[in-house]
């Protein structure tokens, strides 16, 4: 299977499929990754999402959308879910779901907030909190394909313990001279922290390596206020609004 074969297909219904939880990985105190086996999965593009549907014992159902964290090259489909306080679905997924459990899923959905190696670079990724998830699918895809496109990830988290995929990102950046990962911590910084502090501002956004100067593809993902703030600043800095693709995670993702 090649990636280009799995782009949005029109005219065919996206059917519900059954996903089985193969493994659950604790990413942070509020975030877990669900490693899912989906028989007959058609493949996806980095940045796409799925709809999941949970069914209660009395038949009651609820649907939500979650971004895919795994690259198309993975056998297992990975969703990374943050527990939303007071939510209906995410507390169940994060706190109750166990390996071996099954639920319904359909996708992939969305063809705009997508990057593949065919798109090339440079690539400028800006994440707030769990907004890292679809961007991680892009980074993992880029790593698997060993594509040397200049790439910068600017990633805003509340504290060091809230950084999702922290070790994997560190290792990825250490082994790849074309990848820079820059963190900013908005609420708490550990002793000796030398990175950025506070929320992303114009200065942080302008600190791009020279290799990113030439018309980067920009992807911004996070909460609505985060994406509004960052994308407005990027336009003020002179980036082409049409080169900036955004995904806003609503406050009621639950």
């Amino acid at each position, binding site marked *: 299977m090649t990636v280009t074969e799995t782009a*949005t*297909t*029109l*005219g*065919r*219904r*996206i059917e519900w499929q*059954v996903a089985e939880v193969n493994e659950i990985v604790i990413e942070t105190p509020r975030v877990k990754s669900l490693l899912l086996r989906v028989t007959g999965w058609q493949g996806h593009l980095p940045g796409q999402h799925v*709809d999941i*549907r*949970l*069914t*209660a*014992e*009395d*038949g*009651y*159902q*609820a*649907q*939500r*959308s979650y971004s895919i964290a795994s690259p198309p090259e993975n056998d297992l489909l990975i969703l990374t879910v943050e527990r939303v306080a007071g939510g*209906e679905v995410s507390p*169940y997924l994060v706190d*109750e*779901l166990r390996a071996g*459990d*099954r*639920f*319904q899923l359909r996708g992939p*959905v*969305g*063809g*705009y*907030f997508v990057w593949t190696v065919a798109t090339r670079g440079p690539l400028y990724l800006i994440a707030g909190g769990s907004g890292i998830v679809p961007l991680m699918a892009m980074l993992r895809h880029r790593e698997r394909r060993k594509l040397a496109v200049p790439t910068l990830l600017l990633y805003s988290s509340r504290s060091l313990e809230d950084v999702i995929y922290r070790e994997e990102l560190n290792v990825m950046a250490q082994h790849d001279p074309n990848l820079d990962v820059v963190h900013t911590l908005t609420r708490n910084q550990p002793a000796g922290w030398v990175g950025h502090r506070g929320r992303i501002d114009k200065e942080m956004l302008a600190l791009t390596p020279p290799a990113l100067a030439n018309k980067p593809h920009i992807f911004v993902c996070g909460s*609505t206020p985060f994406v*509004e703030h960052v*994308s*407005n600043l*990027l*336009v003020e800095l002179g980036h082409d*609004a*049409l080169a*900036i*693709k*955004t995904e*806003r995670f*609503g*406050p*009621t993702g*639950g």
Partner: protein
Amino acid sequence: MNDDTPISRGFGSGRRAQTPKDRVPPGQYVTPDFPVLSAGPTPQIKFEDWTFALQRGGSLIGKWSWEEFEALPQTTIKTDIHCVTKWSKLDTVWRGVTFDDLLKAAGVGEPTAAYIMAHCDGGYTTNVPVADLIGGKGVVATRYDDLPILPAHGGPARLLVPHLYFWKSAKWVRRLRFMEHDERGFWERFGYHNYGDPWKEQRYDGD
């Protein structure tokens, strides 16, 4: 639900009491918030630079400045809205100019084409059948809850077609173009349903 639908033990004590079935289409949940979903940055448009136009063929058959648009007959509607990302919001209140009143102001009697494409700042487009706009069903809204619509929610003006999924209610709308034949808009080309009836759960192409 089929017999082979997996059951999630312990799930489902949450929201259903607040979800009146006649008000909320299948797969939706009610939220008191107003989430924002857009494909790119929010365009920042000055009212003095804003115009709104109706287009047929190669020519504009109506064009209004902000002041002229404000002088058109204004209609207030209270309606439920349903986003394809699963949230619904009940009893939202909008004010603006109905599609019928726009046609009247442009001197158009019966619309001759069956579809329109809405064109927006930021390059967004969406297609809607004319039949879904006439008879008070479509509005170009400039107020939400009696206040100007915030840029993030589509201000200065957004199309409002509340009986279809909310991506059809295009933000930052600037021009409605009549089309003899249906064409797909932005999300419709990316795999979303061409029509988008929430009561039939037409989320994605093929639904």
